[in-house]
């Protein structure tokens, strides 16, 4: 991959990668570590990507794996971190901005397997079929995880609309 191409891909997808990392990691420092690792992997990746969408899916897959790896280390499993508290997140005055912040908080509280499915469905607008391909899961599994994730989101967020 040429430097120009690499910079173009970063410009296109850096934000998406970071958001996936952010909702999978417990603090922004881990998310930034994941982000950097993913982009370094992209730089050293020798494969020829067919389309931009192909790169995006590859990046999503690598980001999810990196997040998983970061939490599977012994240190991370055994050590409790003082999580970064965002004071705004505690406000529940019902305004649009506070509701929005709570969405992120709610997603972070979901189990890991629901988090990625929910994020890919609601943020990246992928269909169940596409998510199943990206995460290499069965469609029925994705459907189930999506449904359970939605139910949890409903429990965690008052503003979340019931889709049934």
């Amino acid at each position, binding site marked *: 991959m040429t430097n120009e191409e690499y910079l173009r891909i970063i410009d296109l997808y850096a934000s998406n990668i970071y958001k996936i990392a952010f909702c999978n990691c417990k603090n*922004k420092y881990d998310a930034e570590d994941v982000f950097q690792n993913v982009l370094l992997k992209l730089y050293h990746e020798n494969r020829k990507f067919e389309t931009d969408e192909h790169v995006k899916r590859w990046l999503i897959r690598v980001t999810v794996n990196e997040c998983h790896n970061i939490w599977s280390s012994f240190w991370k499993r055994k050590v409790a971190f003082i999580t970064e508290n965002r004071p705004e997140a505690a406000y529940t005055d019902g305004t649009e901005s506070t509701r929005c912040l709570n969405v992120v908080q709610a997603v972070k509280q979901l189990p890991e397997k629901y988090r990625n499915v929910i994020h890919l469905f609601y943020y990246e607008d992928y269909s169940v079929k596409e998510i199943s391909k990206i995460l290499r899961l069965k469609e029925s599994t994705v459907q189930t995880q999506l449904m359970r994730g939605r139910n949890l989101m409903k429990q965690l967020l008052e503003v979340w609309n019931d889709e049934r």
Partner: protein
Amino acid sequence: MMKDKNRQLYKAGFEGIEVSKESMEKVLGRTVYSKRKTGHWKMKLVIPVCVVMVLLSSLSVGAVNFYQSRFLKVFFVEGIEKSERASIQKKLLKTDGVVQVTFEGGDEAWEAFQKEYLQEIDISQFKENPLKNSDCFNVRIANDVDYKEMKAELAKLQGVRLVNDYQDKEE
């Protein structure tokens, strides 16, 4: 409909969550703006490993050559008497730089040769020992002695037909 509302809500929630400039600069500094082309860590190890292997192999070859160069074979003129052979042995032992002198008879040499090279060959065709005239002294010389000089010195002794070192073919 509700799905779309949730999508809007979800997307709005992630607005403003962007990677920091420092983080982005770090990545770019290690990739496109890096002065040196970074490779995979395994690839980085290839050259040092090759260098170490070459050094080790040349060291081991050098050590073997040095060890072999510490031995000379002193052959006698044909029909030499035992007493003359004994006097050669004495002279050898008196020579500075000679550590050890051992006699190797032609029969002994033939047996060793058979064991090493003729195990699968019918040796009955050899009616007599072809190495009967290859009685010699195996002379071990000191480590600090130049084997070429020692070889030349020993070749001057009376009753000595030939001195071979590890590089020569035995005659």
